[in-house]
Every structure is written in structure tokens, then in C-alpha cells.
């Protein structure tokens, strides 16, 4: 009974959400090794680098969605905000606006969506599914409208080749110390948000309102502010993903980021973030997004069709949650019976 005996493994597992995260990491290793054995190029350095770069988008989207999921809500507008971000930034740059200024304006627009989501859900108590469904359409609509219902030209036409290259290198094509910048950006943001969520007051409040919003409120937690913060993080990450998509294509695509909000749910859930709120850690999201990308990459490498890829990924998501449910009811079921 007494937990005084300090078993290091138990201590690690006692961290909230660690169980799910570790399961996802184990799954990741297994999946990676299986693909690697079928096709050895999966292990090749170049493939690993590409894998990490492609995974970065999913990681950022996953962080975005995880913050909101932990508060017990959902953000369906992430993909559209990413698309909006790519389109606004690209449109401004094709008109010759300095990339920094363009990014700043874009960020402001995304922040507006984040605050709007936070208020609709936190203050006006709309069901998050509906509120963010609304902002999802609105943001996508803005993405269509900014350049008059068509994709933009190459950004180099506005800001010149040199500036365009610098922008694209910074977000996508460039490397630092042999690692793609995209991955470095996402890891830096991961570390910052990991710290925010696990070590700060706002992070604690995010867990609290996801666990029991009434209790949190009565303890003096500002529910509106906390909800808004979670949606702001979400919008910010979506904005950065928009920059990455813009840099990758060198232009703005109206459909950029389509369905990304669901990829975010998948990354989070595979990593043990509860869609019901209150549990999960970003380490799990990291593992979840890696699982996602490894599957996509691995299935590609062994020549599976897109259709098959989707089916496998769908099964994995359901399986991950099922596993979580089985593990939890197996443990908690006993404890509950004690009355």
C-alpha cells in the first residue's frame, strides 16, 4: 500500500499522462523497426532527415490540438487557420511586403481567431465543436478571399528571389548543423510549450479546467482566460504551420492545411492525450506525431497506396484509444468498486 518505496520507474509513470506517452514511444519504435526491416532505406540518414522534417508540421498541429483537448475542448479551426496563415503571408509577400511585417500581420490575424474561439467557448459557453466549426469555415473563407479566390503567385515575384529564398530556407529548405530548420523550429516550440504546460500556473489551470471546470472555477481559476490561452496556443502553432506550408510551396495555396485539425487530434490521441480533457502530456503528442509520420513514410517506402495508408492510420488511431480504455478500466475498474 505504502508508496514510500521510491521505485524510479514508478516515479516516472506517476507523472500525469506518462503511461500513454511511453506506450506511444514503444509503438513508434516497433513500427519504425518493422518498416526498416521490410525496406532498409527507411533507416537511411536522408530518409530520417526527411521524416523529421515532415513530422514537424504534425508535431506543431498536435501541440495545438493537445492544448485544447486537455482543456476538454476541441479546435476544428486549426487546419483552416494554417491555410489562412499561408495565404495571408503569401499574398502580402507577393505584393512586396517585407517578410517580417507580413508574418507579423498574419500572426495578428491568427491571434484574432484564437481569441474568438476562446471567447465563444469559454465566455459564451458554446459547444467547442460548433464554435470552432464556425471559425473553421470563416478562416477557410478568408484564405479563399485574400487573393481573390485563387492561389497566389510565387512569393519571389513580390519580395525578390533573395528574400524569398531566405524565407523558404528558414522555414523549410535550409539546415542548421545538418538538421532541417523546420524540425528545429518545431522542437524549440515543443520545448517552450512543454514547459508552459507542465511547469507554469497557466499550464496547471489548463489541466484543471479539463478535469473539472466547476471545481477549477470555485478555486478561483479564470476559466475564460485559461480557455482562451489554450486556443491562442493552438492558433499560434497553426500560424507557424501556415508559414511552413507557404515556404514549402513558395506560394500560397488556398487548400493548405486541409484536414490538419484531425491530424492533430490523431497525434494527440495516439500519444495518450484524453479527448475528454484533464490528462495527457506533450511528450505523448511528440510520440504520436512521430508514429503518424513514420506510418505515412514507411507505407510510402514499401509502396502502399494512399488508400491503404489512410486505412492503416485510421485503425491505429482507434486501436490507440481502445488500448487506453482497456488499460484504464482494467486499473480503475477495481478501485471504483470499493464504493
Amino acid at each position, binding site marked *: 500500500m505504502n508508496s514510500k518505496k521510491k521505485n524510479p520507474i514508478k516515479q516516472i509513470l506517476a507523472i500525469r499522462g506518462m503511461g500513454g506517452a511511453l506506450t506511444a514511444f514503444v509503438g513508434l519504435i516497433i513500427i519504425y523497426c518493422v518498416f526498416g526491416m521490410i525496406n532498409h532505406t527507411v533507416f537511411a540518414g536522408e530518409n530520417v532527415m526527411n521524416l523529421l522534417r515532415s513530422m514537424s508540421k504534425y508535431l506543431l498541429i498536435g501541440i495545438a490540438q493537445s492544448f485544447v483537448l486537455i482543456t476538454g475542448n476541441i479546435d476544428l479551426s486549426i487546419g483552416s487557420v494554417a491555410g489562412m496563415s499561408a495565404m495571408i503571408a503569401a499574398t502580402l509577400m507577393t505584393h512586396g511586403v517585407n517578410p517580417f511585417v507580413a508574418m507579423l500581420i498574419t500572426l495578428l490575424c491568427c491571434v484574432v481567431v484564437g481569441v474568438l474561439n476562446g471567447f465563444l467557448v469559454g465566455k459564451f459557453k458554446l459547444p467547442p465543436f460548433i464554435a470552432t466549426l464556425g471559425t473553421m469555415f470563416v478562416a477557410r473563407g478568408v484564405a479563399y478571399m485574400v487573393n481573390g479566390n485563387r492561389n497566389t503567385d510565387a512569393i519571389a515575384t513580390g519580395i525578390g528571389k533573395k528574400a524569398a529564398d531566405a524565407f523558404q530556407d528558414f522555414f523549410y529548405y535550409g539546415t542548421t548543423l545538418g538538421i532541417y530548420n523546420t524540425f528545429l523550429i518545431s522542437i524549440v516550440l515543443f520545448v517552450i510549450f512543454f514547459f508552459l504546460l507542465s511547469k*507554469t500556473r497557466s499550464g496547471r489551470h489548463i489541466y484543471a479546467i479539463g478535469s473539472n471546470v466547476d*471545481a477549477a472555477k470555485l478555486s*478561483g481559476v479564470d476559466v475564460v482566460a485559461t480557455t482562451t490561452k489554450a486556443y491562442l496556443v493552438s492558433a499560434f502553432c497553426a500560424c507557424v504551420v501556415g508559414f511552413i506550408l507557404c515556404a514549402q510551396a513558395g506560394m500560397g495555396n488556398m487548400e493548405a492545411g486541409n484536414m490538419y485539425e484531425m491530424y492533430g487530434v490523431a497525434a494527440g490521441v495516439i500519444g495518450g492525450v484524453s479527448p475528454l480533457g484533464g490528462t495527457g502530456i506533450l511528450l505523448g503528442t511528440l510520440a504520436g506525431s512521430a508514429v503518424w509520420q513514420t506510418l505515412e513514410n514507411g507505407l510510402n517506402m514499401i509502396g502502399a497506396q494512399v488508400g491503404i495508408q489512410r486505412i492503416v492510420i485510421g485503425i491505429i488511431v482507434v486501436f490507440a484509444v481502445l488500448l487506453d480504455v482497456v488499460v484504464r478500466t482494467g486499473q480503475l475498474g477495481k478501485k471504483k468498486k470499493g464504493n
Partner: protein
Amino acid sequence: MKNVIVSMENICKSFPGVKALDHVNFELRSGEVMALLGENGAGKSTLMKILSGVYTRDSGTMKIFGKEYDDLSPKQAQEAGVAIIHQELNMCKHLSVAENMFLGRELCGKGILKNSEMEEEAKKILDDLKIDIDPKQTVGELPVSKQQMVEIAKALSIDAKILIMDEPTSALTAKEIDELFRIIKKLKADGRGIVYISHRLEELQHIVDRVTIMRDGQYITAMNYDEVTMDEIISYMVGREIKEQFPRVDCKKGKKIFEVKNLNAGKMVRNINFSVYEGEIVGFAGLMGAGRTETTRAIFGVDPKTSGEIYLDGQQVKIHCPMDAIKAGVVLAPEDRKKDGLCTKLSVRDNLILPNLDLVCNKLNIISSEKERQLCDKEIEELKIKTPNVNVDAGNLSGGNQQKVVVGKWLARNSRVVIFDEPTRGIDVGAKVEIYNLMNALKQKGIAVMFVSSEMPEVMGIADRVIVMCDGKITGEVMANKTTQNEILTMATSFEKKQ
């Protein structure tokens, strides 16, 4: 020596369509336990929610420690020293004990949480109260009684001077209640003021100094506990004389209706044998966690049985799921009415009809609204369910009326066995008597009634025969009119010696 720390005068509060509080006065002094009494819907909780800043009053004055407050937010109330221990425990189940205790006022240094400091501080407060809980433990893993202790510790960690306890003992065992009373006495000795809301009037004598009585949103009276009798309190609360707290109806014991043989289901249901005869109520007494609820669940087919036979009117019936039980005529009014008994977001009508859809549907499974209406009207009439109309959400009714809906949905069927699991928990004196009368009516109709309750007086007052359980086993069986509380308690605590 005893200063007035809270004074509320002429407090009024209306909700759409209801006047919840009508010029209510309330006063609390330091170092006293003030019982706030009244039936459900009397406005006790509303008054306390105003004091703790959850609701805003419409009019009236409120002073806390002599300072007048116009508009009080939960945070301001907390800062003024008011803490509320909720009836439905309000904790973040995913967070640890220390995290819950410091929620909303976490200790930070340069924006970083000081976890170990908070844990130490939490440990200190828990130790001070002599509560043995690890501050790192996740709250959801603790039993309800411990969660409540954590809530009290949380209140003390903000140095609350005014503690409001809303039905703190409703989910505790006798031993845990003693522990709670020990803590309450300590808090009192520290000079804190405690508002104590409870429907268990018999426990007041142990701790209470004064009582304030409310009825229908109005202030009735306040007085010293010593100067008033229990009967007076009850008549103030209900506004009429309740002739008998435990109305008993004697019936002739008839033939055996229901028999359970060698029932086993997990650790909490071990080798259970008993029968129920026509014209009797069989009480199930025991401490919380004795396996009574598990037994009812196993009989009803909610939890799987490992072995056991069930006979109804001499015929063996196979019950694998609740549907089997209902078809056979065995029904259960479960313990947690909000969670298991009702769909709180559905209307009273929908709840009443839910298990009876087969009775109101035609061959194509289309619901006949005429039959539906008849059935609802009949139940509401028969059980005297107080509801504005049948379309009200069941969750909005008072506890007693919710319980009647839970029972009512089974009465449309010709059930043979009705199992009540803690039917009177958290409901007021008047409504309790109505539930007792209902059980008596069933008994007179020749229906076998099983009555699980943790409140000894009501088991002894209502049941004809009492079966006592401990640790998943039946440890005794007595006739209710030939036993004493002590005898039952002895049997309820006859644990097996652990190897």
C-alpha cells in the same frame, strides 16, 4: 468572546419563475457550528452560494468580519475567508492532492511552479489534521471520504475562517464520520465558524451549537441547539407535524417470493443466500463498502455473477443483464440517482417512459403519445411527484422528487421484486417519509421489497427483517423489532481476521 463573523440580512434571490430566497437572515459567530436546516428546496444551498460568491443576491446586506460586501466574486469570498465543502465533491480528479489544494493560487517563483514546496505545505496541513494522505496521490484514486478530507485541508490551506459543509456525511461510513467530527471540533476550537448543512438530524447532537431553520425560501428561526427538541426542529422545517418519522405498516407474511442462492460475484459478493416473502421489507444494513450495492448489482445483472441461482415465485430465473431482470419482474432503484438512476438531461416524461417503451409502443415501435401521457399522469399522481409539468428536465427536480421518478419508472410494470439502494440519501425529512410510505404501499401490494440503507434508524424503523453484511458476506439476520443498533453494528463490523 464569540464575535459575529457573518451577518446576512433580508437576503432575496429570484431565479426565473422561482423566488428562492425571501428576506432571509443568517448569522454565524466564531468558534461555533451552526446547523442550517430545512427541507430540500428551502434555499439553504442558495444562501450558502451567495455567501461564497457563486450567486449574486438581488437585495439585502451581507457583512463578513464586519465588512460590508456589495458584490462578491468567488475569489473575493475566498480572500474574505469563506470556503465551501461541496455536497458533490468538487475536485479535479486528474490532479494530485497538493495540486488540488493549491489550485488557483499556486506557488510560483519566476513563473515556474514550486511543486515540492506546495507538496511540503500540503503535507504539513494534512499532518496537522492527522490525515494520512500522500500529497502526490491523484485525487481520483482516493475514496470519497479521503477526497472530502482533502477539501477540508484545502479550505484550511487558504486559512478559511468560515467553512460551509454541505451534507458532508452523506457518503461516509460511521468511522469516517467520527473522524470528520474530530476535525470539525478541532476547527471549532481554533475559532473558526462552521455552517453545517445536513439531513441527518440525529448527528447534529455531536457537534452543533446553534441551528438556523429555513422553509420554502424563508427564514423561520434561529436558536441554541440545547434549547430545542428534535420534534420541534422537524415541525419548524416541514411546517407541519410529521406524525411518525418511520411509519410502519404491518402485513401478514405470505409465501416466499424471491430467493437468492449461493450468489458470488467478485470479492464484494461472497456466498450470498437470502429470501424475501410476500408482505415484508427486507433491510440490508452494513457499513459502506460492505458489498450491499454490489449484491444488488449482481442480482440485477449489471455486474457478472460467478455463480448463484435466483428464484422468483419458486421458478428459477436466469438474469444475465438488466433486461432479463426487468422482464422477470426484478427492478432496481440504484444508489447514485444522478448517475445511474436518471437521465438528468431528459424530461420527467422521457425518464418515466424509458424502461416502459414496450408498453406505450405499437407493433411498429411507434410511441403512442396518448398511452405515454396516461402512464405519466398515473405515476405522477400516484407518487405525488412535484413537477411543474412532465417536460421539465429530471435533473432540475429536488432530490426527493428525482427519487420518486426513479421509483416511478418501475411501477408501471407489474414488478415482483423492487430493490431500493440508499433511496433516502440526501433527501429531506418530508420526502423520506413519502419514500417510506411508497415502500410500505409496495409491501401491501404483495411485492417483495429489498431496502439497502446505511442509516441504521431507518433500516430498523422501516424494514421487517434486517440482513447485515460485512466484507461481501452476510454476517447476520435479525428481526427489526427485536434488535438494537449495537447488535447490528457488531455484525456489520465482524470482519474476518486477515491471515
